């Protein structure tokens, strides 16, 4: 399986249980084909995603991080994604200052019914990360 080591990028996705995880399920049910690099971590709400999870992943070997929640106003917990939006935007703007390409981190909103949209997000994001190549922030193995 070593042939894949270089072909695949390490992409971590944090998906809220109610919308985006469901959207990824919908994409699966609809057999919408996607690249295989992404690994999904299920969280209750995008508001649960501390920006530090993104930092942690990027520092420890992820090449890209994707966060997806319910569309604004549609949060299962009513306000969670509003907090997420502010905090993730803050991080998105900080990354280039640290010397990390902002494209390596994307946050978006995908509802449980948007299987096709999810497919597109995964395709596009994976493509971008492949273009950017591997990330090694701290010169450590």
């Amino acid at each position, binding site marked *: 399986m070593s042939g894949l080591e270089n072909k695949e990028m390490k992409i971590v996705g944090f998906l809220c249980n109610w919308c985006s995880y469901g959207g990824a399920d919908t994409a699966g049910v609809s057999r919408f084909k996607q690249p295989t690099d992404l690994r999904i971590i299920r969280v209750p709400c995008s508001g649960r995603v*501390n*920006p*530090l999870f993104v*930092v*942690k992943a990027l*520092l*420890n070997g992820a090449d890209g991080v994707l966060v997806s929640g319910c569309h*604004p*106003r549609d949060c299962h917990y009513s*306000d969670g994604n*509003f*907090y997420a*939006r*502010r*905090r993730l*935007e*803050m*991080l*998105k*703007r*900080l990354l*280039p*200052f*640290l*010397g*990390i*390409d902002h*494209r390596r981190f*994307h*946050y*978006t*909103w995908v509802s449980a019914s948007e299987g096709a949209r999810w497919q597109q*997000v995964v395709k*596009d*994001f994976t*493509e*971008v990360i492949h*273009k950017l190549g591997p990330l090694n*922030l*701290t*010169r*450590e193995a």
Partner: protein
Amino acid sequence: MSVDKLKDAVKQILNEVDIVIGYTEGFDKVHATPLFINTQDKVDQLIWDQRCVHNLASYLPSLKRKKVGVIVKGCDSRTIVQYIQEGLINRENVKIIGLPCSGVISLKKLLKAVDFANIDDITFEDNGNVNVKTEKETKTLSLMDIAPDKCKTCQYPTPLIYDILIGDPIKSDKPKESVYEDIIEFDKKSLEEKLAYWQKVFDRCIRCYACRNACPMCVCQDSCIAESREPHWISQRATLTEKFMFHLIHTVHLAGRCVECGECERACPMGIPVNTLKRKINLEMKELFDYVPGVNPDDKPPMYTFNVDELKIKEHKIG
């Protein structure tokens, strides 16, 4: 302003509070050090000049249950405003003595200016000249050349909040746009240059947590996640990865809360520009939410609130 007026004020306040925090002479001629005054006889140890660099407001949360008087410069007063925003102090338990300030010294810059020679004496003139005597020479420097960066772009020379103001208010003559000029300039570098810079400076970190403990907004102190295993965000390895992680924890926790007093980098024994990342976020907070930390006690820190419609946050395209 004569220090006598300050002493008189402190003497008076001492009748109402348990402690007054001010400055006194440090271990040598260039260092001042915080002074905790609990009796009238200590008042005479008070000093006030350009060596009074410390942000004394930082002590307030740990003294929350006491009545405390505190001496603040303009920059320090933002700390108190931010504490009020976040409900971290009881305003009625604090007596604030405000001192308008036209700049303090940066020890690091001063030492560099005299080639790290031992300084035997230092005096300050009203015109902004600083006379330094070392074993090799006597030198006159301009205060602004050896002042911390924050003083060079200071927007708040007069405290924003106080119970007693000693001395005449000073208006800032520094252009507003100058505050983040360095940040904007740094950001123009290539990603590779920026990353290499942070790798270099963070690699020096010894994780002594001086930056954290000196930071007025790092109120977690004993509960900091940099040292806990539950949650276990970070190991005790002193690798660049973990040092990076620690500084980003500090940065993210300070997002939209940093009052830019610069205590973190002043405290750092390894010369790491710890405040820069937080100031970058502040620049973004201003742009996104028109928010400046520590200015208006009624503001809400932007990371703990939201607007249903965020006018400035546009949905990002991938790539």
